[in-house]
């Protein structure tokens, strides 16, 4: 690949081009802004609901389940964040995240442990 008349590898070219906002259209920028919000908030909501559901459904007592849920939360959130930028359309991303949150959330809220 040639950039400014010199041969450079693909990774270098990607890196140098990585933050060039001028190459992004207005719709691209809006897409990125919305994805950032959805990835941050949606990922956080999903991970939080999952950790609550884990405490209800997994037969592990007290502090052990908290330790486990924290480990899983820290593993999952960055992956969800990155995946949010890799799913082709924003609509699909929203549907996937909302559906995941609803499944986990309903599961947690239906558990009798919540009322106690």
């Amino acid at each position, binding site marked *: 690949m040639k950039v400014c008349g010199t041969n450079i590898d693909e990774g270098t070219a990607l890196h140098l081009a990585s933050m060039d906002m001028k190459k992004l259209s207005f719709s*691209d920028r809006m897409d990125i802004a919305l994805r950032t919000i959805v990835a941050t908030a949606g990922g956080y909501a999903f991970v939080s609901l999952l950790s609550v559901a884990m405490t209800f459904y997994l037969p592990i007592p007290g*502090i052990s389940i908290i330790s486990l849920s924290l480990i899983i939360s820290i593993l999952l959130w960055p992956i969800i964040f990155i995946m949010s930028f*890799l799913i082709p359309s924003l609509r699909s991303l929203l549907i996937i995240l909302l559906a995941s949150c609803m499944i986990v959330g309903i599961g947690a809220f239906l558990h009798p442990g919540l009322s106690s």
Partner: protein
Amino acid sequence: MKKGIRIITAWLHGWVGLLAGWLLFVIAISGSLSVWRPEIDTWALPELSMEHPDPSTSAEAAIHWLSIHASKSPRWFLTLPGPRAPFTKADWQDDNGHFVRHIFDPVTGTPDHVRDTMGGEFFFRLHFELQMPYPWGRILAALLALLMLVSLLTGVIVHRRFFRDAFTFRFHKGQRSWLDAHNLAGVAALPFHFFISFTGALTLAIMIFPWSLQSVYGQDMSRLFNDFTPGFIERPATGTKAGPLKIHEIMQEAQARLGDYSGALMTIANPFDQNAVVTIDSTDGPEVAVHHHTLSFDGITGKILADRIETRPAVVLYNSLYGLHMAHFAPVWIRLGYFVSGLMLAFVIASGLHLWMAKKLRTAPSATSIFMGRLNTGITGGCLAGFLSFFLANRLLPLHMANRAEMEIRIVFIVWLLTIIGMFIRPHHRLWHEVFLANCILSAAVAACSLISPGCSGYMPASLALLFSSLFLVAALYGRSNTLKAAR
């Protein structure tokens, strides 16, 4: 998004790095220094004897002093002397309810002639609290650790040819050399960067993901405390005076049950009450996991109340990951690996920031990009200068100055701020050269202070400071030669 996966991840990698870069740089440098926290503590207290004292004798002496000078505090917290930090640290509440900390001379058993300094604790606290009030600093640090993970994962997708990256460095090629160096340092220590970011985020995870804890315990903090630390026995004060504490007998029993308990944490609750409890929590051992063995004693009778070793699998797993981050288990050569890898992480961040700034200055020079470039040099270079000034302040401030420890920290931020201001005054092409030269001089001054201080423990700190001084000098000369080349 219509663009390719690698374009998107490259974009994400760059922007996450840019937005979190400065704070992550500070976290990486202070974290690297925190690996040597006990050694920095020891260096910062040249008036203390470096011989490893008996923890039992030191604890008894410190408790005797506390019973006279901190009698109103409901709890005393002691960190017993260990092989890496041969002195007792004590925390207690003063009459206004504020926590105070002092280091006790293991020979005299008092803090009277020991200088007021934060020592390694400054870097340790800065690493995860960022000089911000609780809980905001910790929340921010946890979020930054998550962003670091995002940046690393996206970096892996962008630079998929690791093996080639790890052996590619092209000298004197401008930005390409910087990018090669960025890739090289990033790839060489990539496993370390991953686990340190993951375990770092995990240590503070409860600050940002408290929901599982809320769902299990709700507002029942005493149940949480009992479940989290079952070896710690909580007994409310009765109001009936009793004493003295049977510390000698307790320490003998602790030695019989724990073996070597140097470096253990000792808590004395309700020290003058009939319900006094002495708890000793030993965590230092050769295992990667922070291995809690906790003993609780009735402070007045010396009778054992609890003897608990943590064995719950999920807690042990969490403690293993926590232990991997803290590196208490590590012998000196592994700690050295942590330190060098941490510095490499700081370099990856700084070189990434520099690449972005340089590109902006070259392709779209504007007042904003010039401002950002200068600010970047000031923040990254000034951080190092500020940290080096901390070591100098430790040696140069008057020993009995009021609020001396606070002044040491203020000096760090004053020097840092002055460096940033300096970057806006000096000519643009000389910035890196001058900031490296300043750090070279400061490192040499730290080395000189290490050598001339009375009671200084060996030549190792001075040698290390001289090594950094030389590295800064090389960087300064490299920066100068590049400037001259550009001028021609």
